[in-house]
């Protein structure tokens, strides 16, 4: 997890296209400039970045389902709950399930667990569009390698 680069996931550990689910893992870094302000003497993973972690997890599921033809852009969070404080060093297990794939949009339900316990959850709406820039698609493909994205699942799906 590199907070300053918005790389909030470390790896994709499960991808099930038939059931439209995904699971990812990430460890909150022990040190980050973000913790200098959030908060001095009491570092916590910012809630907005936990929401982003769930969005990125859901986003990779949508990218997988559209076989890297479409890019999801965050449109709305609903029923977002941040249930506990997340300090540096915490290992996060995020998961998402696609609730609906509409025309140009998608809705997912996502959560983050720590030691098996749900610590955050929300419903997320995305606008889903063709990649608006070639550089973005290239970047996402490169990111897929870093995250150990299971390309075989797309080929089989």
């Amino acid at each position, binding site marked *: 997890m590199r907070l300053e680069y918005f790389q909030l996931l470390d790896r994709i550990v499960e991808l099930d296209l038939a059931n439209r689910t995904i699971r990812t893992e990430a460890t909150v870094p022990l040190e980050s400039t973000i913790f200098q302000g959030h908060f001095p003497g009491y570092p916590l993973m910012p809630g907005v970045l936990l929401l982003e972690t769930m969005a990125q997890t859901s986003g990779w599921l949508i990218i997988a389902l559209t076989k890297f033809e479409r890019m999801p852009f965050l*449109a*709305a969070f609903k029923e977002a709950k941040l249930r506990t404080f997340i300090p540096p060093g915490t290992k996060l297990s995020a998961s998402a399930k696609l609730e*609906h794939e*509409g*025309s*140009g*949009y998608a*809705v997912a339900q996502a959560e983050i667990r720590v030691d098996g316990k749900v610590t955050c959850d929300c419903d997320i*709406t995305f*606008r889903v569009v063709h990649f608006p820039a070639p550089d973005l698609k290239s970047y996402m493909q490169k990111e897929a390698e870093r995250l150990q994205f299971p390309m075989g699942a797309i080929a089989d799906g």
Partner: protein
Amino acid sequence: MSSTFDTVAKIIAETCDIPIETITPESHAINDLGIDSLDFLDIAFAIDKAFGIKLPLEQWTQEVNDGKATTEQYFVMKNLCARIDELVAAKGA
């Protein structure tokens, strides 16, 4: 059509906090009811689920942008409901 209208009007009223009595078959969802594109995603989601269809929003948007259709054809309530009825009928065919 009438039951479709009632369902869609209820969805719009609840999603956008619009008094349901102000929604008529002649209402334009965007121009008259002031529904923006983000709210319309919520409405489309609710319509998709309620009717078991997939509103072809991308196709409609493309047709409007290309000048092949007007927003009235898709976003005036009576026309929207007619499209929904067509999609439901196509699903059952």
